C-alpha cells in the first residue's frame, strides 16, 4: 500500500512539474502576475510529493519490504539500519529518486529564497527548473520505477554491494548529487537570462550563491569519494582516473571556472556571454556525469546495472536538455551586450586566464574519458586510457594555473602593474624557494619534478598567505590593529584565502604521496616482522570475527619504530554472506606526516598470509586541504547572503514596479 502511495506521489509530482514548466513561462511573457506566482506554489507542491515518494521508498527499506523488486535486490534484513537507509540510493532507481528529490529541493529553495528576484526572471527560472524535473520524473516513472512489485517475493533480499556498506559511501552520493543538481540552478538562471536577453551584475549576484553551494557540495562529495577509495579499496591509492571519477571531476573544473567568471560579471559587468556558456556547460557535464555511466556507454568499476533501453532514454533526454540550451545560446547570445573593457594584465584578465586553463583542463579530462569510445567508433578497437595520459595532458595545464593563483589574487580590477605585484610577492617567492630546497634535502634528491611541484605548491600557499597578510597589514601595523582588520575582512575574502590555501595544501599531499609512497608485499607467518620505510610491522596472527551480515578474518600488526611501540593495526578481510563478496578493510594509522596502511590478503596454505604495507607520506593533507576549500566556500556563502540581503528590499520594490508597468 505504501509503495502504491509512493508511486502515486511520483505521478502527482510529475503533473506539478509539467504545469510548473508551462504556466509561469506564459505568465512571464504576458506579465500575468498570477501565472508567474504559480511557479512558486507548484515548486513547493512538487517538492512535497517527491518527499512523500522518497519517504515511502525509505520506509520500504527500513522494514525490509521484499515485495518490492528494488528492496529485494539491494537490501537484506540483517543489514545495519544505516545501510538500510543508504541502500535507498545505493542502486539505480533509488539514486534517481534522490536526484529528483534534490532537484525539487533546489527548485523550492529558489522559490523560497528568491523573494527579491525580478518576478519575470524568477518565473522563468522556476519553469526551466521544472522542465528538468519533468524529464527526470518521466525517466524515473517509465524506465526506472523504484516501486515495482515482485509477484513472487523472496524470503530475504540480495543485500547491498558490500563495497557500498561503508559510512563514507553512505554520504558520498547525496553530497555529489547536491553538487551536480545544484548547478541546475545556475543553468536555469542562464537559460532564463537568454530568454530575457539580459545579463547584468544583479543576475550574477543571484547566481553566485547557488553556484557556490553546488561547488561546496561537489568538492566535499569528490573528496569523500576519494577518501573512500583510499581506505576501502585497499590499493592505497586515492584517485584512479576512472570514468566515474572523471565525470564528477569535470563539472567541478567547469563549476570552479563559473564561480570565478561570475565574479567578473558581478563586479565588472564583463565576460557575460562566456559566463552563460559556462553555466550551461557545467550543468551539462553534471548531467553527463550522472548518466553516462548508467547508459552503458562507458564501463567502470562502480557503475550500476545497465539496460540499453534506459540508455537511449537518458541520451535523448540529455540531447534535448543540452542541445536545446546550446541552440538557444547560439540564437540569443550574439545579441547580449558585452560590458567593460579591461587590459590583459588585470584581475579580469587573471580570472579569464583561470577560466581558459580550467576549461582546457576539463577538455583534456573529457577527451581522456571518451577517447576509448571515439576510437572504437572510428574502428580503432578497444583502448583504455590511464594515468600516463592525464600526467601528460592534464597536469601541464594545471601547473601554470597553480603558479598564477596567488598573482591573480593581487591584481586590481581593470589595469594592473605586474612588476609591482611581483615585488610584493618577493618574500613569498623566497620562502617558496627555501621550501623547495628543504624538500630536496629531506627527500635526498628524490624525483626532480615532484620537488619542483612541492616548490610550486609552497609558492601558491605562501603567496596566498602573503596576500592575506597584506590585506590585514600584518607586521606593518600593531597586531591588535591587524586583528581588527582581519575581523572586518569580508567572508568572501576569507573564503578565497582558505580555498586557495586549501588547494595548495591538497596539492602538497597529492605530490608527496604520489612521489614518495613506499609499498611492500610479503607472505608472513605469525610472529614475523616486515620493515617498510624504517617502520617495523610485526604480524601477530589472525582471528575470525563475525559481523551482522559478514564474517571476517582480522589480522593484528604491532607497529614500531626503532623498537618503540607506535600503534596496533587490525586490517580485516570480510566475506559478505549474502553477496558472497569479499572486501578488504585496510587498517590505517594516520599522522600529520603520513599514513601507516596495512592490508591483509589471502592465506598461502602453509601458515603464511599475504600482507601489503603502504607508507603514504602526507596523504591526509589531501583531505585536510579539501576540507579547507569547503570551509572557505561556506564562509564566502555566509558573507554573500548578508550582502545580497541588505540592499535587496529597495531593489525588489523597484523591480516589482518595473514588472507591473
Amino acid at each position, binding site marked *: 500500500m505504501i509503495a502504491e502511495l509512493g508511486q502515486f506521489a511520483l505521478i502527482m509530482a510529475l503533473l506539478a512539474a509539467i504545469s510548473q514548466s508551462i504556466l509561469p513561462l506564459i505568465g512571464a511573457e504576458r506579465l500575468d502576475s498570477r501565472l508567474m506566482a504559480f511557479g512558486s506554489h507548484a515548486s513547493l507542491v512538487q517538492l512535497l510529493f517527491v518527499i512523500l515518494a522518497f519517504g515511502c521508498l525509505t520506509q520500504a527499506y527500513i522494514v525490509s519490504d521484499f515485495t518490492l523488486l528494488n528492496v529485494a535486490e539491494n537490501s537484506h534484513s540483517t543489514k545495519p539500519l544505516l545501510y538500510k537507509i543508504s541502500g535507498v540510493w545505493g542502486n539505480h532507481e533509488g539514486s534517481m529518486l534522490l536526484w529528483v528529490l534534490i532537484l525539487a529541493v533546489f527548485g523550492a529553495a529558489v522559490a523560497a529564497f528568491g523573494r527579491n528576484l525580478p518576478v519575470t526572471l524568477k518565473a522563468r527560472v522556476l519553469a526551466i527548473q521544472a522542465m528538468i524535473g519533468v524529464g527526470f520524473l518521466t525517466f524515473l516513472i517509465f524506465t526506472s520505477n523504484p516501486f515495482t512489485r515482485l509477484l513472487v517475493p*523472496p524470503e530475504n533480499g540480495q543485500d547491498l554491494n558490500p563495497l557500498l556498506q561503508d559510512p563514507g559511501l553512505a554520504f558520498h552520493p547525496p553530497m555529489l548529487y547536491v553538487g551536480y543538481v545544484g548547478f541546475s540552478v545556475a543553468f536555469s538562471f542562464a537559460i532564463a537570462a537568454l530568454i530575457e536577453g539580459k545579463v547584468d551584475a544583479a543576475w550574477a549576484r543571484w547566481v553566485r550563491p547557488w553556484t557556490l553551494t553546488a561547488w561546496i557540495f561537489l568538492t566535499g562529495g569528490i573528496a569523500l569519494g576519494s577518501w573512500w577509495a583510499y581506505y576501502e579499496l585497499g590499493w592505497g591509492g586515492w584517485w584512479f582516473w576512472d570514468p566515474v571519477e572523471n565525470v564528477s571531476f569535470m563539472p567541478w573544473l567547469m563549476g570552479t571556472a563559473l564561480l570565478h567568471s561570475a565574479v567578473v560579471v558581478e563586479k565588472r559587468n564583463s565576460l557575460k556571454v562566456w559566463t552563460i556558456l559556462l553555466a550551461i556547460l557545467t550543468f551539462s557535464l553534471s548531467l553527463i556525469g550522472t548518466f553516462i555511466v548508467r547508459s552503458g556507454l562507458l564501463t567502470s568499476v562502480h557503475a550500476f546495472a*545497465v539496460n540499453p533501453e534506459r540508455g537511449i532514454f537518458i541520451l535523448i533526454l540529455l540531447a534535448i536538455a543540452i542541445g536545446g540550451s*546550446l*541552440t538557444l545560446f547560439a540564437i540569443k547570445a550574439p545579441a547580449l551586450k558585452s560590458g567593460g573593457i579591461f587590459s590583459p594584465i588585470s584581475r579580469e584578465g587573471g580570472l579569464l586566464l583561470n577560466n581558459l586553463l580550467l576549461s582546457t583542463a576539463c577538455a583534456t579530462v573529457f577527451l581522456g574519458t571518451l577517447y576509448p*569510445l571515439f576510437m572504437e*567508433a572510428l574502428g580503432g578497437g578497444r583502448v583504455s586510457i590511464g594515468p600516463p595520459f592525464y600526467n601528460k595532458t592534464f597536469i601541464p595545464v594545471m601547473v601554470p594555473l597553480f603558479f598564477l593563483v596567488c598573482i591573480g589574487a593581487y591584481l586590481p580590477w581593470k589595469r594592473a602593474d605586474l612588476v609591482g605585484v611581483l615585488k610584493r610577492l618577493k618574500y613569498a617567492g623566497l620562502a617558496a624557494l627555501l621550501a623547495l630546497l628543504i624538500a630536496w634535502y629531506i627527500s635526498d634528491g628524490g624525483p626532480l619534478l615532484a620537488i619542483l611541484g612541492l616548490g610550486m605548491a609552497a609558492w601558491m600557499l605562501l603567496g596566498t598567505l602573503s596576500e592575506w597578510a597584506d590585506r590585514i597589514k600584518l607586521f606593518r601595523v600593531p597586531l591588535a590593529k591587524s586583528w581588527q582588520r582581519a575581523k572586518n575582512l569580508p567572508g568572501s575574502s576569507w573564503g578565497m584565502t582558505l580555498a586557495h590555501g586549501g588547494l595548495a595544501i591538497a596539492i602538497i599531499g597529492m605530490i608527496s604521496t604520489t612521489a614518495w609512497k613506499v609499498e611492500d608485499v610479503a607472505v608472513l607467518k605469525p610472529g614475523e616482522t616486515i620493515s617498510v620505510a624504517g617502520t617495523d610491522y610485526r604480524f601477530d596472527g589472525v582471528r575470525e570475527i563475525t559481523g551482522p551480515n559478514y564474517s571476517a578474518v582480522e589480522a593484528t600488526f604491532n607497529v614500531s619504530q626503532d623498537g618503540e611501540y607506535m600503534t596496533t593495526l587490525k586490517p580485516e578481510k570480510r566475506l559478505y554472506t549474502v553477496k558472497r563478496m569479499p572486501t578488504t578493510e585496510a587498517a590505517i594509522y594516520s599522522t600529520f606526516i603520513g599514513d601507516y596502511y596495512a592490508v591483509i590478503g589471502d592465506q598461502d596454505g602453509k601458515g603464511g598470509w599475504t600482507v601489503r604495507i603502504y607508507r603514504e607520506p602526507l596523504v591526509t593533507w589531501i583531505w585536510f586541504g579539501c576540507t579547507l576549500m569547503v570551509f572557505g566556500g561556506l564562509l564566502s556563502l555566509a558573507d554573500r547572503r548578508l550582502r545580497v540581503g541588505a540592499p535587496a528590499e529597495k531593489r525588489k520594490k523597484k523591480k516589482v514596479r518595473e514588472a507591473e508597468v
Partner: protein
Amino acid sequence: MSAKRKAIFALPLLITVVIFGYFFWALTKPGRDPKILPSVLIDKPAPEFDLKALVNLGVPGFARKDLTSNGKVSVVNIFASWCIPCLVEHPDMVKLGQRDDINLYGINYRDKPEDGLAWLNKNGNPYHRVGRDPKSRAGIDWGVYGVPETFIVDASGTIRYKHVGPLNTGDLEDTILPIIESLQAQ
C-alpha cells in the same frame, strides 16, 4: 554583427551534436557492451564435469557428455534460487525450453538442493537437464563469476558465446536466437 561572429556562438552546439552522434552510435550498435571482456573460454571445448540431478525434480543430472550426445546446439544457463535477476530472465528460459531443436541445460549454482528444487517447482522447470553445483566446482571451470550467466555450446561441445547477467528484453531475439540459428546452419 557579422555572420562569422554569429557562427562562433553556434560552435558549442556543433561540437555537442558531434559528440552525441558518437553516443547514439555506441548505444544503438547491437551487441556492444563495454562491460563484457570476451571470455577466454570462447571457441574452447567446454570443461569436464559431471553434476548430479536435483532429487525429485524429474529431469536427469548434467554432464559434459550431454553436450555432444544428440547433435543439437546447447544453451547452458547458470542459475540459483537466491538470484533475483534469474527470475527476471526465467520467462526467456521457458521459451527456450519449449524448443526441441536445442538442449536447454541448467546448472544450479551455489544453492542448497532443496532450495533449488523448490524454486524450480514454484516457477516451473524449463531445463531438459539440471545439474547441482552447490560448491561451485563446475562453476569455476566454466569461469562463472556471477549469476545468471548463459553459454551457447555447439553440437561438438565447443563454447561459442557467453552472456553475463540476466537476458534483458530483446537479448533473446536479437542475440541468443541468431547465434543458435547460425550454429545450427553450420
